């Protein structure tokens, strides 16, 4: 790797965000006036100095990227992975010169094209033909270059019949195909791509991946972000893992992906030796496991499939009643849900005799968002008394199932991601 084309040293990007101060238990008018005056003063000062005005009483610095160092050699295909908010997009934006870094330095050798969105600048009123030229110019192609590749682009997008139709009349599939076709014919030394491979139907995606492979085999350098781990695995020569704005690992794609998926720090299965079992007065837990539909241990269930938490326990007293509660935390340690087995029809509230039991809690598919989860279990006796909590004993990382994203490839915000019923009708 003597021929380094991208070198980032100590790269950092800081944003300043404002907060509203927590209000005191009682608020004096004097304080309110004083604070208001302070805010106005600060805003006036910011405006005079040409700084952005920030709402809120307290300012906080947030580092979207901090001290990121890496090198990319000529002809490498480097995948960038990380959870939502890890700084992937900020990194690409900094490398594409869209936003200025706050510290550090990057040197890039050669012509760079970045593709952070398909169809940037597409105008709905303009025809397909016109948009090819517009989008091409926006992505940095010369007019002569677009003219030369025009037929190829049209053939790739499969929209020849609709070239002179305004793109607002295109189906979303056609739109995406046309947009990607233009981008796919970019010819830079270094290509920076954000999360754009996961669009279009499966067949078109395949075509895009092939095109990418073609580009890579011509010795061009590619840097790309994707949630699509299989494509990172198959396309990349190396991968970079970002976590909370820091670069945590660089290496072969499969090892980095493993590290990324295992990043929840929790195993999907936990067994306790007889002497160390968590217990209350009447029962002890032997093992807890995350399982999929096929009853296999599942550390990476997909968003579209149900996932089960199987709790094996031993009742060591005759004639007892037992209950279980499952608590599910996400990686920000927010409690996503809790569930009690008091709707379980067979055994809940009934008298149990000595022996081994297995209780399974199934979380339906299309409920959890992607990301890491940890599970806590509460074992309790009759009338919710005699409770014992097993804190975060197992965990799993939910990944996108095939096709669940539809045509959207960005971050799904929110704690959960249920598939809701949508309906539109013309009135």
């Amino acid at each position, binding site marked *: 790797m003597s021929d380094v084309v991208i070198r980032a040293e100590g790269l950092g990007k800081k944003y300043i965000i404002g907060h509203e101060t927590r209000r005191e238990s009682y608020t004096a008018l004097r304080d309110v006036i004083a604070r208001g005056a302070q805010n106005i003063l600060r805003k006036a000062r910011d405006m005079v100095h040409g700084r952005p005005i920030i709402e809120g009483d307290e300012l906080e610095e947030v580092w979207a990227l901090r001290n990121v160092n890496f090198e990319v050699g000529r002809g490498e295909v480097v995948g960038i992975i990380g959870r939502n908010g890890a700084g992937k997009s900020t990194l690409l934006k900094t490398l594409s010169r869209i936003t200025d870094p706050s510290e550090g330095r990057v040197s890039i050798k050669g012509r760079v094209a970045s593709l952070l969105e398909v169809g940037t600048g597409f105008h709905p009123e303009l025809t397909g033909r016109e948009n090819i030229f517009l989008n091409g110019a926006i992505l*940095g192609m010369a007019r002569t270059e677009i003219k030369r590749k025009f037929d190829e682009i049209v053939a790739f997008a499969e929209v020849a019949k609709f070239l002179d139709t305004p793109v607002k009349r295109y189906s979303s599939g056609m739109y995406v195909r046309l947009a990607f076709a233009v981008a796919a014919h970019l010819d830079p030394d270094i290509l920076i791509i954000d999360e754009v491979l996961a669009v279009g139907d499966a067949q078109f995606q395949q075509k895009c991946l092939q095109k990418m492979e073609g580009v890579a085999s011509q010795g061009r350098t590619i840097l790309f972000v994707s949630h699509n781990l299989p494509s990172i695995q198959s396309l990349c020569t190396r991968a970079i893992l970002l976590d909370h704005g820091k670069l945590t690992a660089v290496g072969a794609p499969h090892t980095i992906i493993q590290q990324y998926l295992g990043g929840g720090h929790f195993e999907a299965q936990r067994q306790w030796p007889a002497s160390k079992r968590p217990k209350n007065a009447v029962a002890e837990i032997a093992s807890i496991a995350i399982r999929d539909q096929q009853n296999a241990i599942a550390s990476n269930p997909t968003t579209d499939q149900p996932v089960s938490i199987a709790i094996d326990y031993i009742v060591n007293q005759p004639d007892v009643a037992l209950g279980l509660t499952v608590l599910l935390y996400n990686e920000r340690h927010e409690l996503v849900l809790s569930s009690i087995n008091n709707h379980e029809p067979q055994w809940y509230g009934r008298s149990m005799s000595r022996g081994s039991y297995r209780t399974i809690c199934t979380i339906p598919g299309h409920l959890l968002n992607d990301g890491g989860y940890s599970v806590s279990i509460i074992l309790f006796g009759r009338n919710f008394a005699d409770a014992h909590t097993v804190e975060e004993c197992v965990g799993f990382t939910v990944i996108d199932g095939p096709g669940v994203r539809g045509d959207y490839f960005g971050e799904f915000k929110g704690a959960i991601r249920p598939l809701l019923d949508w309906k539109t009708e013309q009135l």
Partner: protein
Amino acid sequence: MKETTLIIEPGRAEAHYWRDLWHYRELFLILAWRDVAVRYKQTLIGVAWAVLRPFLTMVVFTVVFGKLARLPSDGQTPYALMVFAGMLPWYLFSSALGGAADSLIGSANLIGKVYFPRMIIPAATIVTALIDFLISLVILIAVMLWYRFAPGWQILLLPAFVVLAVLASLGPGLWITALNVKYRDFRYVIPFILQIGLYISPVGFSSGIVPEQWRLLYSLNPMVGIIDGFRWCILGGESPLYGPGFVLSLVVVIVFLWLGIRRFRNTEKTFADLI
């Protein structure tokens, strides 16, 4: 093939900014073409607007200032023609300024996703204003034919004044569009300034009616020198150019342009974070 090395550092002044701007000239042309195409794509109404607005304003101003207020025209020129010769640069200025001021906000998606020298965006919108101007120029020729008015040799200098009007709008336009990214309330200021500007600039009347001792002060408004220049070109000798005032207007235009470019360059790098 020689490779260029690009260095990205915080606050690093773009060493080749102007060369970069030249390098991106095709993008400038295509964005300008997009604005024009989109504007005139929606049937003929777009063109009709460019014709109707100055024409009706000319009629109203001629009636109000010429007939009702009985203000004098420049020399022997028909009042309507004098008004129209003043309105041409004013509408060029006001639509260029208005377009440029809103341009960055209107292109937020581009700014967040692609790098290019941002100055291209406000500059490209000015082309639309120029096209409107060319259409109005056709009406001017019609009005001149109607009054059987032949221009003098001065008309040959008109392009220079067109460039001046564009530069006059570019300076404040760059400034305001940069401010607009941070403080969205500036977009409400523009229509207000343009509204007032229409009346404090010599559009509906001749700047000859301003008392001699105030004329230099009046020329602090850069549009005074530009409108006078247009009238001098179009109406020939009938509207003499007031030298010191014109120079002062020119200086004001240059100062605003410099301020505008400076402010724009200073804030350009933060646009993507704010927009």
